[in-house]
Structure formats: structure tokens, C-alpha cells
């Protein structure tokens, strides 16, 4: 397991897309927070869902890159998937920590910051699970980037049905956003638990499917 984790870390630090994703996370979030700081009092935390794009990209790429040869190197699929999940979680937590220190005033770093880290880690793992299940990077990337950056479909759904408050990103955002502009949202703790449950279920489903399926190939 340790060798598999270390191999995933070597992979992570030897592709340029990692640094691009990290840049989007840290600089993108901080930049948006700075731009909005005059109009929004809580600009740092407001930018957190957007900044999650960086770790979402990371999660999808780690799920979909190098699959056949990774399985040749680590044929025990549970070990391989576990190593990848660990690397996605650690990398997204580190990036979230760095970003928050840069984008949020020190005095504001409290339990909401912890919530924001959990939000990023869960976003990255959900992206990883969906990427692994879809076996392609394109579909989940488009889906998640559109939802995070352009039109938040999940947010719009809160206007349509109260059930939308249980969607992972809507529920997870309650951990750190003040004044979420929708009715009857979950409490921060309930929202966090809801997002974590989504994450665990999706990762487990992805793991079971990955363990059983044919990798196929060219």
C-alpha cells in the first residue's frame, strides 16, 4: 500500500496539470476574493466553491489517467483505488489550507475554515468517484466546472424543490457560507454530514465497480 501511495505521489508531482490545478485553486480563489472584497463583506468564503474547481480537476485527472498501466503495476484494485483516494484527499486538503490562509483574513479562520477544507476534500473525492465511474475525464469535468463556475444548476434547483438542499455542494456550502440565498437550508453540521455521506457512498460505489470491471484497452 505504501509503495502504491508513493507511486501516486510521484505521478501527481510529475505532470504539469497538477500545477495548473493548484494555481487555479490558490490564485483563482484569492484573486476573486480580492476583487469582491469591496462589494462583499465575506468575499474569501464566497469564493470557496469556485476555487474548488482546481481540486475537482485534480480528482478527475487522478481517476482517469494511466489506468491500464496503473493496474498492471498494482493489480490489487482495492489497494490502487485506496492509494488514489488518499492522494486526492491529502492534495486537496493541503491546497484548501494554503488557499484559505491566502484568501481569508486571519481573524476569520475558525470552524468555517475547517468546513471549507472539508468542502474541498469532498468535492475532489466526488469528482474522483464520478471520473472513475464514467471512465472519461471530459464528461465529469464539463459537468463540475459548469456547475461550479458558470451556472450553478444545483443552486437553481433549490428554487424548485426543497430536496435540493440535500445535494452535496448545496449541503456542503452551509458549512462556511453566510447568507446562502435560499430558503430552509441545512445547519452547518447537518450540511457537512450530508456532503460527507455523499462522498463516502460515491467513493465506495466507484471502488466496487472498479474492482469488478474489465479495464479493456486499445
Amino acid at each position: 500500500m505504501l509503495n502504491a501511495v508513493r507511486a501516486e505521489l510521484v505521478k501527481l508531482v510529475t505532470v504539469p496539470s497538477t500545477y495548473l490545478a493548484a494555481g487555479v485553486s490558490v490564485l483563482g480563489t484569492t484573486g476573486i476574493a480580492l476583487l469582491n472584497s469591496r462589494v462583499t463583506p465575506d468575499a474569501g468564503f464566497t469564493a470557496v466553491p469556485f476555487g474548488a474547481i482546481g481540486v475537482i480537476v485534480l480528482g478527475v485527472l487522478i481517476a482517469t489517467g494511466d489506468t491500464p498501466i496503473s493496474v498492471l503495476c498494482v493489480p490489487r484494485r482495492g489497494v490502487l483505488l485506496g492509494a488514489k483516494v488518499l492522494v486526492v484527499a491529502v492534495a486537496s486538503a493541503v491546497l484548501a489550507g494554503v488557499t484559505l490562509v491566502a484568501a481569508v483574513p486571519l481573524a476569520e479562520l475558525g470552524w468555517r475554515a475547517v468546513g471549507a477544507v472539508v468542502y474541498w476534500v469532498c468535492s475532489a473525492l466526488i469528482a474522483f468517484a464520478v471520473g472513475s465511474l464514467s471512465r472519461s475525464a471530459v464528461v465529469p469535468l464539463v459537468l463540475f466546472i459548469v456547475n461550479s463556475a458558470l451556472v450553478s444548476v444545483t443552486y437553481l434547483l433549490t428554487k424548485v424543490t426543497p430536496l435540493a438542499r440535500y445535494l452535496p455542494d448545496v449541503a456542503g456550502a452551509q458549512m462556511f457560507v453566510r447568507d446562502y440565498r435560499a430558503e430552509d437550508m441545512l445547519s452547518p453540521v447537518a450540511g457537512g454530514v450530508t456532503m460527507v455521506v455523499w462522498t463516502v457512498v460515491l467513493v465506495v460505489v466507484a471502488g466496487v465497480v472498479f474492482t469488478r470491471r474489465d479495464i479493456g484497452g486499445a
Partner: protein
Amino acid sequence: MIEIVNLTKRHGRRTVLHDVGFTARPGRVTGFLGPNGAGKSSTLRILLGLDSADVGTALIDGTPYRRLRDPLRTVGAVLGGSGAHRARTGRAHLAWVARSNGIARSRVAEVLEQVGLSGAGRVRSYSTGMGQRLGIAAALVGDPAVLVLDEPLNGLDPEGIRWVRRFLRARAAEGRTVLLSSHVMAEVAATADDLVVIHSGRVVARGTVDEVTGGHGSLEDAYFALTEPRER
């Protein structure tokens, strides 16, 4: 030693492998020959633990691939090119491959030297032949006793083909087991000691090159006699 026993594989209603069985022995190059779509890659993917068989087993030195601890120390495999991320360098690719099986970092430079890629940069800039050689380097990094190569000569120029051919002969001469698939019989005839011919998911001939060719004018005649549609 590779033992393939009674493999059957279905994709939905279509049976792609019917009771496929053969053995590849140490010290010999075994050619796995058949037209495109005959079941060569399906067999090799099951052998390497990528796909599951519906019936039968595939063993490497008596163990299924998925149960090997640090498999690269036992088997080296090349499945169509290097499979490396295009933005990574060949060296970085081999570094994680070695790391995943706890293989000493010093092996990376050794195998890069061995395949002549020491100075090469990012995989994106590689020719087809360089990609194949990077794949071979990854297969060698654990110094395995068994080599499995799926169409290793595809897309190579004559010089590249000659390099791979000599290379595989030398590995067999060291006592290793070499199994290579191909749909081009001339390549295999010049490289292999033993042949397994597969057609429509069934093994239609196996034996030494002479045994398989016997009764036909040449390996080419034998190949077409064995792989022609039956109704003709």
C-alpha cells in the same frame, strides 16, 4: 512459464474466446499469431489481470497475475506503446512505475540506457518507436523472468523491428519466458521458437515453428490455411 488453461470470455452474447489454452516456456520466444480481432489482446489482458475470464485460468509461474506481490518483479508487460502520460518525461514515468513495486530508483537510469532513451524528454515528443521502447523499458524495470508483449512491432520502422527482435532473442537466451503477439507472420517467424495460432477466439495450431509450418509450403501458407474462413 506462462500457462493458459481453458479460457472462455464472453462480451454479452458474443463469445470472444473459446476454451483457449497454451503454454509459453522459459528460454523460448513464443509467438501468439492471429488476424486482428482473433482474441490475442483479450487473452493477454486476462493473463495480466486487466480483464476477468468467464471460465478458465491464466497462470504465471503458477500464480494468477492479480495475486503476485510486486508483479513487475515477475512479469514485464507491454500493451501497445508505453501507456505513459504524454506530459510526463520518460524518466518520471519509469520513476513511478518502479516506485509502485518498490524497485530501486537506480533501475530507471539502467533501463533507459538499455533501450536507448537516456536523453529523451517528454513522452509527447516521442516517435512511435520511442514509445514502444519506453513501454519495453517499463517492462524491464523489475528485471522479470517473464515478458509479455502485445504487438510490440506495430508502427516500427525496419531498424526498430530489428532492434526489438534481437532484444527479445537475447532475453530468451538468458532463460526468460517471452510471449509476443502479432498479426504479421513474417515478424513472428523470424523471432519465435514456438507458435500459437488463434482464429475467431479458438487456438487452431500450436507447436514449434516447424511443426506449425509442416505440411504447408511456408508459414505464410500455413497461416492462411489455418485462419481462412472455414466455409470457403
